[in-house]
């Protein structure tokens, strides 16, 4: 366990978490106007129609898999009669399916973003930074699922790497503020890097279009079709001048 690992798995997650929380509050409070998916579908629809649903459904499946793998302890699944082997087979199967969807979808989306002039024009610097971290995270995740847990190309883990005995323990330990860095350092380097990049990605969310994750409009199914709202008297006509900008009092 090096100092670098200590920093990466014991300190960075908290910095990232704080940046995420404060950042989200700041964004919601001061940039509600900028809180959007920033869709580019108007410019290009054909590729998006294939790539976007593939990617999004795949990434949601992957997210569900991560919740199951990281937040649910192995003892719980065993208690309901799911053996380690069965869990592993299921996890790899769904992981491979989700991984393929994400890989294909993301490839289409990146190809589209780079080659369709109109779409590339509206790509911001934050988009590009976010893309690098997101793609890095996903590539490492795919590598972990395909190369290590499924095909075992390193020959180290014939039954797949049991991240539930290591990564998951570290991940859960973060939330009780007792980071178990040692549990993480036994993982293969690709797992460690995947974790570091994911943590970075969390810190990036408030400053990118990824905020749209938190606007999933689930309330839509429950609300009445038509929305009525009263005129806000505070916003009627000209605005109340901001502090320091009140006009000179005329007498």
């Amino acid at each position, binding site marked *: 366990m090096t100092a670098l690992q200590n920093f990466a798995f014991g300190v960075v997650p908290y910095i990232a978490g704080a940046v995420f929380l404060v950042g989200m509050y700041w964004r919601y409070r001061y940039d509600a106007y900028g809180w959007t998916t920033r*869709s580019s*579908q*108007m410019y290009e629809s054909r590729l998006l129609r294939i790539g*976007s649903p593939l990617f999004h459904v795949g990434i949601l499946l992957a997210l569900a898999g991560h919740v199951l793998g990281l937040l649910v302890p192995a003892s719980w699944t065993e208690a309901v009669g799911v053996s380690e082997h069965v869990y592993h087979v299921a996890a790899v199967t769904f992981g491979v399916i989700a991984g393929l969807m994400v890989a294909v979808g993301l490839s289409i989306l990146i190809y589209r973003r780079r080659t369709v002039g109109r779409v590339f024009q509206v790509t911001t610097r934050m988009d590009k930074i976010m893309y690098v971290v997101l793609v890095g995270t996903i590539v490492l995740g795919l590598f972990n699922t395909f190369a290590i847990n499924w095909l075992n190309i390193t020959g180290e883990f014939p039954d797949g790497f049991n991240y539930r005995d290591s990564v998951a323990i570290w991940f859960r330990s973060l939330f009780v503020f007792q980071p178990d860095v040692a549990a993480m350092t036994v993982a293969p380097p690709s797992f460690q890097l995947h974790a570091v990049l994911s943590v970075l990605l969390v810190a990036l969310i408030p400053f990118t*279009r990824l905020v749209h994750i938190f606007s999933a*409009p689930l309330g839509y199914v429950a609300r009445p079709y038509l929305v009525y709202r009263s*005129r806000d*008297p505070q916003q009627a*006509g000209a605005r109340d001048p901001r502090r320091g900008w009140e006009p000179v009092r005329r007498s």
Partner: protein
Amino acid sequence: MTRVMAQVGMVMNLDKCIGCHTCSVTCKQTWTNRRGVEYVWFNNVETRPGLGYPRRYEDQEEWKGGWRRTKRGKLALRSGSRWHRLTQIFSNPKLPGIDDYYEPWTYDYDTLISAPPMDTTPVARPKSMITGKDMDIRWGANWDDDLGGTAETGHADPMLKGIEDQVSFEFEKAFMFYLPRICEHCLNPSCVASCPSGAMYKRTEDGIVLVDQDRCRGWRMCVSGCPYKKVYFNHRTGKAEKCTLCYPRLEVGQPTVCAETCVGRLRYIGLFLYDADRVLAAASVEKDTDLYEAQLDVLLDPNDPEVIEQARRDGIAEDWIEAAQKSPVYTLAKKYRMALPLHPEYRTMPMVWYIPPLSPVVDALKNSGHDAEDAGNLFGAIDALRIPVGYLANLLTAGDTDVVDGVLRRLAAMRSYMRDINLGRDTDESIAEAVGMTGEDLYDMYRLLAIAKYEHRYVIPAAHQEAASALEEAPGCSLDFEGGPGMGQTTAVGEVRPVPVSIESFHLTKQRALAAEHAELPEAGGDRA
């Protein structure tokens, strides 16, 4: 039980539209001269027959906008159930692309003055306002203006359904008119119903449909949901934007920019009182052709004492009730039944109404050498010229030609009846009787439609924002309201009311102008406060 609500509505008299696009240009200058909305025209003027903007937006088989009536008689969004639409959130299947509108462009004007000396004249090349690169201009917001190119594209007009074999785009046989369009501010808006975020809403006070820019998340479902395609996606901010009916102007009693600047003076703005509890039932009637009548039934008579009583109970202010009684849009839509809703078959209960143009009929008569102001000739021509009537019916009455016939006959009667007056002849009451009206009605209608004075066209009560306006007018004293103890300030030359700088309204201007007429003001140089 009724629930009375107020709705600001507009009527456009298509007979007077000369297709000058002033409304579009002034609207654009006011609202959409920003990045991200270069392609957006909250107000656009279409030549019909024509494809419209965006192209073929009226083909709901394709775009799935608006509502439909299910087999069980319920109203459902044409684009499917809520769950179904949520599954499509990752890519909207029915979103018009930028090319369905047009790719906005500008010209490289700088070349004209910065080009070095050369043999040929420098050319300002078109540049895409999206990519900034050279582009070929292939379509625009009013590409088929004045039937330009319709010999090739006109047959794709969705409104020719059922009459396609009768319509000719040969120059000699063509007919056309202009259709200015803004947001319909529907009573039953399908864009609002489509918005997953709940960011779109209908204002309780005046029925204006707006997008909350802070709550819009850019899902674009409203663009697909609106059958008129009058919600637009700002591709820079990632938010939906739409015609606001110039609510900051309406709130202070001014007409919208499009109406104020209309050269033909063909727009009317006023209030409707309607029964909010009956809207759903009216929008769900079985036959498309019954929707027009159902929509009229939702509108309440503002002079009915029961309606007035209920309106008061529902919190509608006295000056709003009074404005509803003087409303030109109510008069035109319900009293005279001259104005028709655009595409009632979308079941959104649109609140921008159109008086169908008689001019295609008049032109045809005149061109064939007949007296185009003779009532008999006009009535005969309306019956004989089925093509314009059929087309207008597809546009305004879900295909019911009888309703359009009736409106055109009343317009024709007004035209003939007034000719006698203008020529100093005795009026012919039989003309009025032929269309079930009285000569007096025809004359009143003529005053409203032909003379169309400013104060008759726009009857707009200011919003009740006493509390808010006190905040913005710096010299305002808290007791300084109309009739309040602190009203105005008394000076040596009499009462001087503070002039608000932040709002200037038609009513205020008028009040001051009238006050100036009656007050004897001191000579210049007097002791003015």
